[in-house]
């Protein structure tokens, strides 16, 4: 057998490796990179989707920053991050550690119940919640039943309540995913660690902070990445429940993209919003993975 050149890593040379990547890359490029590039290009034009576009440079991006309605839609997306990611994480951590510690009988059953919202299509969830939030819906019925009549309202039509109400649907939806992810992570923690902690005199809270939390850091990062992305690109929920109303109080960037591209014929502006949204999602999820990686190193 011919003697291998001593330099370089073993195996076939790098150039060949790229050849293996090529088929997948071509698919990726055709269905992701090319559309992305076109979006960036379209975002530099004013275009109604039919006639020849006019070059406007960065005007569409300037609009994203200066138009108060667009700016507030990005603000709403950030509020949704709290409801989609932060709240489910806190609740999910509590739920998962209880389920994990208590060694409940029928754990599989509870896990399924908690996970169930993830199985249902978002549109179906939105239609159901829209009914529950209606002035004569279940939420108000419940409040009346316990004597809290003063709190009843048309939840989705109330300027103060609409955005939290929409966000809460997201919380309800994401808790299952986060809990199941964390449960899986906690299941892998060796029992000896807890034993050692207990011997050192740690209570349940201390145990949670010193053993459980650090061990599931990877899962937390995955959960945050998934839920934050879901929050930022929320479309179906808003489309079905409020259409951005009342006023503009629940409009979100993805809804604006749809609105502008398909209803108003402002394709360039829609593309600019989409590009900005993509960038924000990219930066935030990149940040989350970086922070998690650095901590685990």
């Amino acid at each position, binding site marked *: 057998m011919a003697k291998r050149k001593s330099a370089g890593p073993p195996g076939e040379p790098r150039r060949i490796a790229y050849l293996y990547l090529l088929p997948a890359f071509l698919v990726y490029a055709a269905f992701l990179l090319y559309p992305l590039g076109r979006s960036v*290009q*379209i975002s530099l034009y004013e275009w109604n989707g039919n006639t020849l576009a006019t070059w406007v440079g960065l005007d569409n991006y300037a609009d994203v920053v200066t138009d108060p309605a667009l700016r507030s839609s990005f603000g709403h997306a950030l509020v949704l991050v709290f409801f989609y990611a932060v709240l489910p994480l806190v609740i999910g951590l509590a739920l998962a550690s209880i389920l994990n510690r208590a060694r409940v009988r029928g754990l599989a059953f509870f896990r399924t119940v908690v996970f169930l919202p993830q199985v249902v299509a978002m549109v179906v969830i939105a239609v159901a919640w829209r009914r529950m*939030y209606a002035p004569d819906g279940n939420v108000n019925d419940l409040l009346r039943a316990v004597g809290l009549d003063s709190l009843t309202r048309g939840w*989705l039509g109330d300027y103060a309540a609409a955005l939290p109400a929409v966000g809460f649907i997201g919380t309800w939806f994401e808790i299952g995913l986060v809990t199941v992810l964390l449960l899986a992570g906690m299941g892998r923690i060796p029992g000896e660690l807890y034993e050692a902690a207990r011997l050192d005199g740690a209570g349940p809270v201390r145990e949670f902070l010193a053993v459980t939390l650090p061990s599931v850091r990877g899962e937390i990062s995955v959960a945050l990445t998934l839920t934050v992305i879901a929050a930022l690109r929320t479309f179906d929920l808003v489309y079905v429940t409020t259409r951005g*109303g009342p006023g503009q109080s629940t409009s979100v960037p993805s809804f604006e993209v749809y609105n502008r591209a398909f*209803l108003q014929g402002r*394709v360039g502006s829609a593309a600019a919003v989409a590009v900005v949204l993509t960038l924000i999602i990219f930066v935030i999820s990149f940040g989350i993975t970086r922070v998690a990686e650095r901590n685990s190193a």
Partner: protein
Amino acid sequence: MRSRPTSLLAVAGLIGAVALAACTPGSNSDSGQSASPTGQVTTDASTMGDVTLTVWDQEVRGGQAAQIEELNKQFQAKYPNIKLKRVTRSFDDLKTTLRLALSGNEPPDVFQANNGRPDMGAFVQAGQLVPLDRYAEAYQWGERYPESVRKYSSYSTDGKTFGTGSLYGLPQVGEVVGIFVNEAKLEKAGVDEPKTWAEFQESLATLKAKGEQPLVLGNLDKWPAIHVFGTVQAQNVQPDAIRTLGFGQQGGSWKTPENTKAAQTVVDWVDKGYFSKDVNGLGYDPAWQAFSKGTGAYLIAGTWLQADLGKAMGDNVTFMLPPAVADKPVATGGTGIPWAISSKSKHPDAAAAYIDFITSEDAMAVLAKNDNLPIADTADQEATGPLGEAVFKAFGTAVEEDALVPYLDYATPTMADTLGAALQDLLAKKATPEEFLDTVEKDYSGFVSSNK
């Protein structure tokens, strides 16, 4: 992981390269013939030889589906040489796919294009529609379709002016926003059916005093209040001024004392509790469904609810045009989605023959039979029930008296959003009538000044 920065750079570079290499958006969408076709048109479809027409429509629900299926069958039987290739889509799907289809190389020959600027207006601008004036003359559509109706599918040939110019589409059905009345409720409260706008407002007060909810409105979906405001505005503002605003033509203004009065009236209705408390939190469908089950005395809504309300309420419900301030009624209204012809169609004459067939006098009878509101010859048609009769009569009167004013959201591509949100603000008292008018005026004047 370490090579990430370089791969990132590579990706960014690639995206940039794609962006630069591609040509200007829209440059490959050959916009068909821009000049109006001339020459003799053929109107006898049986002499046109073997032709296949691709038809895109959104007549997929209930009576709409029934009428078009029946008419298509009749058309095929009469003209076996013309083959119809029908593609059905929901309203939303048609709206989103038609734009792409028309800029492609094989657009449908006949299709339904929504009246407003983002749709028909944009297609006219791109030269994608055949002006129908020659066919209107040949088939004498003008005699059966009055100008007040044709306006709704007329544009200047550059697509900039809406409401005048060439005819680009022909609708089958009409729409008018009026008042559905629960007659039992009026009787119980001792209120006679109001004949004037003042009587109508009085009846609201009486009904409220008797513990009845006078008006039903579910405005969670943003647009329903546009019809309520339009109805109030029509009783306060000159019809021609509304048309200028509604079609987004030059020279109008929202900031007039009359418009302020209209907005103030709506606010007064909120203050007096004529609507339900959670008007912005109630959906449109739940609202009219509640009305059909006995909530509220009046429902300001369009004739498209006729079939559903008639079925649910029988003799208990009737329909009237908004009672007029003076002797002449004015009401928001318009047409169903008009049928248009692609400028790339190889068989425009056959396409026009098809449109003529589904809008003919006989077709109007088929429409009426299937619970639709025929847009032409309305008074001659036989409705399916007492509510249908009231609706036909109201629409017939509206057309005869030239009482129709356009939907206000036609005005600009963004007006549906602007006005919808602004009206939610107005109803929730987050905005005063003046602030409301400022918001709407800004949208209108911004568009008008950039559309010269």
